[in-house]
């Protein structure tokens, strides 16, 4: 199962008399640091990880099959459960694929476009907050987690006011969004942006500049740009390796071409390009960029319709197939839908970024220590709901 040729570590390559037994360690599916129900089979020599193999599937819910048996509108609800930390992005990705079936004559109202961007970016911040907070916990700092949750709570409250839900929004629908956002809510979001930016500096004080944190993450789990591309890694994992790829820039969907923002990439500022610290820093910086996008969107948001009248209450996409992808918090989220012109889609396929990101784990954790393995899993920031679908 695990190959012997992966012995790359200096500890075991010394004297033959010192060879001791290897241990097969079953980490998960119930383990505090696997971020859900990931199971990693680790072959260790003392504290050193010789090889590891992620086993997925503990959260498999037949998402794609479900979408073939419920109506298109009901399928949106199932997308919430994919990457449940960025449900807005999932909604949007799926709706975008459905909208593409309608062809170019379907025009999404301006106001809905702006609301989508605001919600998606706020959700990205919430998701990165959780990623950073739990990452601190993975390396042993418990307090930043609570700080991050304090801010995440505010975002979730905003979402609760917007659509009545805190986690599984079912808010972005084919043709627009479900409910309108009132001015008071926009003011609340504006306040949040002003409140949030100084808090990011606080995280920098607590974690990014902490010498122990830097020692634990710099030069750990180095993922080269080539390896990241070979394995199909996307999102902050790929950008952490120094590849400036972001679909919001490369293939601007929605109205992303109207905003001015930057794409942070890993620079190896504390170690080498593509280490855990870079992946972490990319997320911290993306939170600032997302805040700036939200602020720009708040300035430009027009009044008007929130749903295209072209899509009726009964969503019945025309015959055809479509593939779209969006830049979700964890990377490139793709949806492939096939419609036969009925209310129920013929086929839905989801390309989940976490699934591809976790696949690279054995490559970058060989020869590291168990504590590093935890740090690496945390830096890949997977959501099992999306990996297993």
């Amino acid at each position, binding site marked *: 199962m695990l190959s012997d040729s992966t012995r790359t570590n200096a500890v075991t390559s010394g004297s033959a008399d010192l060879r001791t037994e290897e241990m097969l360690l079953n980490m998960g599916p119930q383990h505090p640091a696997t971020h859900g129900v990931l199971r990693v089979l680790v072959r260790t020599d003392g504290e050193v990880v010789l090889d590891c193999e992620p086993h997925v599937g503990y959260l498999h819910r037949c998402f794609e099959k479900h979408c073939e048996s419920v109506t298109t509108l009901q399928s949106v609800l199932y997308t919430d459960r994919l990457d449940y930390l960025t449900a807005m992005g999932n909604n949007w990705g799926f709706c975008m694929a459905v909208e593409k079936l309608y062809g170019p004559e379907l025009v999404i109202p301006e106001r809905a476009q702006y609301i989508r961007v605001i919600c998606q970016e706020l959700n990205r911040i919430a998701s990165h907050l959780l990623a950073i907070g739990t990452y601190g916990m993975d390396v042993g*700092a418990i*307090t930043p987690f609570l700080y991050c949750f304090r801010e995440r709570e505010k975002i979730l409250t905003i979402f609760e006011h917007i659509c009545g839900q805190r986690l599984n929004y079912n808010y972005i629908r084919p043709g627009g969004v479900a409910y309108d956002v009132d001015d008071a809510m926009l003011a609340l979001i504006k306040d949040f942006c002003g409140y949030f930016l100084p808090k990011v500096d606080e995280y920098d004080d607590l974690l990014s500049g902490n010498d122990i*944190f830097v020692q634990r993450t710099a030069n750990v789990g180095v993922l080269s740009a080539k390896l990241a591309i070979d394995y199909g890694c996307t999102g902050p994992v790929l950008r952490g390796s120094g590849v400036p790829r972001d679909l919001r820039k490369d293939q601007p969907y929605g109205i992303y071409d109207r905003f001015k923002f930057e794409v942070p990439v890993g620079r190896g500022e504390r170690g080498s390009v593509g280490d855990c610290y870079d992946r972490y820093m990319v997320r911290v910086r993306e939170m600032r960029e997302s805040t700036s996008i939200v602020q720009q969107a708040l300035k430009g948001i027009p009044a008007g319709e929130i749903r295209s009248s072209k899509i009726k209450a009964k969503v019945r996409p025309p015959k055809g197939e479509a593939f779209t992808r969006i830049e979700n918090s964890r990377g490139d989220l793709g949806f492939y839908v096939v419609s036969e012109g009925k209310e129920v889609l013929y086929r839905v396929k989801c390309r989940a970024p976490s699934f591809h990101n976790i696949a690279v784990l054995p490559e970058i954790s060989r020869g590291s220590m168990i504590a590093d393995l935890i740090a690496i899993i945390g830096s890949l920031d997977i959501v099992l709901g999306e990996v297993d679908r």
Partner: protein
Amino acid sequence: MSMDTKTLVDWVLGSDAGFWWRFAGVAAAWALPITLWVSLVGLISIWLERKISAHIQCRLGPMEVGPHGALQTIADGVKLLAKEDLIPDGADRMLFALAPILAFAGTFVSFAVIPFGPDLIITDLDTGLYFLAAIGSLEAIGVIAAGWASNNKWALFGSVRAATQVVCYEIPMGLAFVTVAAVAGTLSMTEIVEQQNGMLWNWYLFRNPFMPLAFISYYIASLAECKRAPFDLPEAESELVSGFHTEYSGMRFAIFFLAEYAAMYVVSALAVVLFLGGWYTGIAPVDKALAASPLWGNVVGALVIITKSFALIFVQMWLRWTLPRVRLDQMMHLCLKVMVPIGMFVLVFAALWQALLPYAGALNGREALYPTLGSVTGLVVFLVLVIGGWMWVRGVIRATTSYKTANYRT
């Protein structure tokens, strides 16, 4: 009042009949108050930990049971008592049961030589410091036994880490002990404190320019000894589930828990005795007045020593809720390549200072009302270490928070 070793031994050995009965009687008579005190320290520290962690993390912590949750720990203790006594299949049953007791015993016995006041010490051994260093390692044996007996891979990892850590950090800790012993010329806890009589600058922390280093080195080593963050590797909850006590529940777990908090008190009280003037307030006239009355001397002395100890415990908690955890190799690197050389350096130079400038340094047995060369330089070094260290850390943090860089893609 105290019963010193000699009297005790004479009394016990003086007659042959009923030797063990008397021995057991004396042991029980002392064990009871220590048990009560250990439990009380545990209760207070656990409540403090919860409240301090909560306030550091913008929470309230326990608020329901008792005023500000003061009785929460008792409620939890009752819950743990009522829990099923579970021994996992395949565990070494005897060792599994013995391990918490072993772990607790080491800490428990340490209380015998830790003074609470001029006369409030159970037994003032001539070799008190040596006894503490020796008995302190007993906890490691309990922890290793727990990890091995549990028949759980995570527990085994935790216990091996604990063994590594305790063995490593006993070296810098021992070096700090030896430094104090070299300056004090004695291993008796009471005598070490009495030599720190006088004004604040007469404490061993400021005795000569090398003592602040010895103190900081001792404090870091004591964090590792107690398995406190950033050295909480043996029970690293995100890595090893719960480390060596993964399989423990109910009262056995409670004993491990209590031992951890008792150990925190022991190392803090020891730091107070060795470096921070023990029961002395640091204001010579007050100490003098207190010394005149044995009752008040002991009562206030006990309060002073407990307050100082809890101040150090607070710092331990503060660090725990602020810092991430170091990795095993980093932990050993810090110990063997940084702290041991520093400890050696401090020992050699503190001893040299003591030999060459005895009057500028320790004024054994004499009240130093005016700062000496040693205490002035000691104070300066201490301030430089603390303020400079703080500024250095802030500088490192500020350097990383620079955000805009040329490498961005627009």
